[in-house]
């Protein structure tokens, strides 16, 4: 099937309906492996047992940025190509992105207290991720404020693309400024600096989080398509009642 055929919401619903159970099963299996590896992982020589928090904090941080990246690509789809599923994809990704960002912030704070002696410091990395969380809330509020989904989608797309400026700021904040947050240790030139006994559970958990996002995103997109159908049908019903 050509990829363009997926632009048709009915075909998308049919295909995603077949894919969802497999994705959900794969998510559960990968998480089961990831959590068992995380439980059995050795303590870090500096962080002790708190290194286990990294197995959820780091994937949540990657997805916090990944969701905004998905929304930015979808925003281009909305503004440039007017792809029928583009703002459906963006709208479905926003609450998930907000949730992963909240997870990143909360788990980071719970790691920071024993390691830094503080739940929160206003350094470049933490502050830019907090800004990302506030931007997610802003986009969600915008969608709720504007009733017409296509108008809301265009306004949210502009806000999303402006907000994408924050992504490189988050990524490079640890290089540009003196931050308490440590620099990149996995996604860096020269390869990861983490011992394989800790890297493996981290990567498996990251795969689990990615599968979780794909599963929930597909399901949320299906819900959004159904919501728009309900809206259209209610408008047609009101139109018919007016004649």
């Amino acid at each position, binding site marked *: 099937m050509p990829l363009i055929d997926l632009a048709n919401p009915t075909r998308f619903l049919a295909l995603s309906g077949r894919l969802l159970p497999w994705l959900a099963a794969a998510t559960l299996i990968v998480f089961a492996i990831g959590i068992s590896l995380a*439980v059995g992982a050795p*303590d870090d020589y500096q962080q*002790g*047992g*708190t290194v*286990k*928090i990294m197995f*959820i*904090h780091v994937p*949540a941080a990657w997805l916090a940025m990944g969701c905004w990246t998905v929304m930015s690509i979808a925003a281009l789809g909305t503004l440039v190509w007017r792809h029928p599923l583009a703002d459906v994809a963006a709208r479905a990704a926003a*609450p*998930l992105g907000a*949730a*992963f960002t*909240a*997870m990143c912030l*909360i*788990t980071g704070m*719970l*790691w920071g*207290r*024993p390691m830094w002696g503080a739940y929160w410091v206003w350094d470049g990395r933490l502050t830019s991720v907090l800004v990302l969380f506030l931007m997610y809330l802003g986009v969600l509020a915008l969608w709720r404020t504007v009733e017409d989904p296509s108008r809301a989608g265009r306004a949210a797309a502009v806000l999303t693309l402006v907000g994408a400026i924050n992504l490189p700021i988050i990524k490079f904040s640890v290089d540009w400024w003196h931050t308490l947050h440590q620099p990149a240790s996995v996604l860096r030139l020269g390869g990861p600096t983490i011992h394989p006994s800790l890297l493996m559970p981290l990567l498996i958990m990251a795969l689990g989080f990615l599968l*979780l996002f794909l599963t*929930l995103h597909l*399901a*949320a997109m*299906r*819900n959004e398509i*159904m*919501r728009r*159908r*309900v809206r*259209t*049908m*209610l408008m*047609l*019903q009101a139109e*018919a009642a007016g004649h």
Partner: protein
Amino acid sequence: MMNLGPYAAFILGAYGAAALIVTAMVAWVVIDHRRQARALADLEARGVTRRSERPGEATR
């Protein structure tokens, strides 16, 4: 019982918070799906159809 050392409360707190957020996301998707499916079924039961589903009208 696994020994998580002196920071057990922070580790368990982090995993608990993550589990709570994942549960909330799954619940949001499932509840929303049920709500939209029910609304669609109600409208269809009342005979409301989209233009694309009416015979002789262009697909949208």
